């Protein structure tokens, strides 16, 4: 099977040929298949945002390639706009970019720029709003009268209204309260399910990553240091610790249990895993001391 997205030896140098020159992304390669959810983790300054801004052609690599369905996205620079509508990018704090008079117009902005109009445009907006449970009564409101969490939802809906095949989120839940966080996560899951879309998410929230992602990509100082299943990445807590990243709290509890002599034979990342593992142990009733 051909990957939907392939990154090959991508390097991005900021302030090239100046004394301040540094590689924000350094020789990164990986492949993503359709329908996967990829989580990207790493410290601030590790190159995560710079990396994802390449994936839809927002910035150009200093060297290396990005292939979308096997074709270099920069092969025909004039068609980069088409790439940007198929690979959507939701920035950090996207609500700061709302600007229209009404929620409806704001959501319409992207699809309109793709050339949609009239009934087709209206249907597109109604469809995405019904999928994302954005109530009709919101559509005529000014986006500036909404709460922070609601604004974020509208901004995300605006990108989803372009129906991208791949959608990238740069810290979509940062700064939200728990209710806002849950509703944004639900939007992402609903969109992916409906369109079998590919999702790439940058986040610092390891619990949400353990729940959502299929694979995790770990960045450190511009380099990709691990790209593997959630179990294998969180399972290697030494690597994560060495670059100062956290593992989920539940995983920490089980590491502590293991240190105390408790038989922990597998890695636990979510509460569901934890409960079923402990129930199994209890039923077996094995002795340990």
């Amino acid at each position: 099977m051909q990957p939907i997205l392939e990154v090959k030896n991508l390097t991005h140098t900021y302030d090239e040929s100046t004394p301040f020159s540094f590689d924000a992304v350094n020789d990164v390669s990986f492949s993503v298949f359709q329908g996967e959810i990829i989580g990207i983790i790493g410290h601030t300054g590790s190159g995560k945002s710079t990396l994802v801004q390449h994936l839809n052609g927002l910035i150009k690599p200093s060297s290396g390639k990005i292939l979308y369905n096997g074709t270099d996205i920069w092969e025909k620079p004039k068609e980069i706009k088409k790439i940007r509508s198929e690979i959507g990018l939701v920035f950090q704090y996207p609500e700061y970019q709302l600007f229209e008079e009404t929620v409806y117009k704001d959501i319409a902005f992207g699809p309109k720029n793709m050339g949609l109009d009239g009934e087709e445009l209206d249907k597109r907006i109604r469809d995405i709003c019904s999928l994302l449970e954005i109530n009709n009564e919101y559509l005529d409101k000014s986006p500036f009268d909404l709460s922070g969490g609601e604004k974020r939802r509208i901004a995300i809906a605006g990108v989803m209204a372009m129906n991208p095949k791949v959608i990238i989120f740069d810290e979509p839940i940062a700064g939200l309260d728990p209710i806002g966080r849950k509703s944004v996560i639900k939007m992402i899951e609903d969109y992916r399910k409906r369109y079998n879309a590919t999702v790439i998410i940058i986040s610092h929230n390891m619990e949400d990553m353990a729940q959502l992602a299929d694979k995790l990509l770990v960045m450190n100082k511009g380099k990709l240091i691990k790209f593997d299943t959630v179990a294998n990445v969180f399972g290697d807590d030494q690597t994560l610790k060495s670059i100062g990243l956290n593992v989920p709290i539940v995983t920490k509890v089980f590491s502590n249990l293991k240190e105390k002599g408790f038989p922990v034979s597998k890695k636990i990342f979510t509460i569901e895993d934890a409960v079923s593992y402990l129930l199994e142990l209890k039923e077996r009733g094995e002795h340990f001391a």
Partner: protein
Amino acid sequence: MIKDSIIEVKNVTFEYSNSEKTKTVIENFSLNIVRGSFTVILGHNGSGKSTLAKLLNGLYKPDSGDVLVDGINTKDEKYELEVKRRVGMVFQNPDNQLLASVVEEDVAFGPENLGLSPQEIRNRVDSSLKAVDMYDFRKNAPHHLSGGQKQRIAIAGIIAMEPECIVLDEPTAMLDPKGRKEIIKTIEKLNKEKNITVILITHFMEEAQNADRVIVMNDGAVYADDTPINVFSDAQMLKNVGLDVPQTTELLLSLKNSGFNVDTKNISIEETADTILKAFHSEGI
């Protein structure tokens, strides 16, 4: 004045209004903050916690009721500067709080406005930067620092005013986990070593673990007011007001529901592990 309270909020009501409508954000609200204490205020967006923060140092004035800082009414215009010096505020976005192009100049901004001698300003800037572990960066440009470092500079600028109390309104919301830890460590240190009263508004549960007191706000009123352990183990209450239950509590509750005999009043990782061990031992396993 109640003995030893630094801030008294008495029957305060506050509303926002525009030409179309009036919205009451805080209604008949009362609260005392004990001098030297560390209080965390939790609540979802729109619960009134940021409005409360701005009432505490006179940025907002109550529509009815009073806020007293060290016995001074925030409505008393004569003492406006005195109130703001005693209660410093740190906000969410570090980029909106720094204005100078050199770190130490930024920290000096407040003390300069107090009309202090150059030597006194120098002393305060140095000791404030040391208190937040940013002294080595005093000659740097703020925009080249990380979010957590910028936020610590903002805190240093407040400490340089020698406040009695610091109110922090979601100071870590825009930071990464490392930056968050730096800020919480700094706040805890200021509270313990300098005896500065701290009021921390947040929705990260783990930041409240070492507080003396946790207040949960909902719809502009106090919904719960207790020790961290009592607040965090009340999963139903937290869910009612749309807050997260800490992962450790959630784990212990799930185990209890699956028939394990566990005490759910534990929040640290160590205690949670011990509780699970105990449950297995009591089964004779």
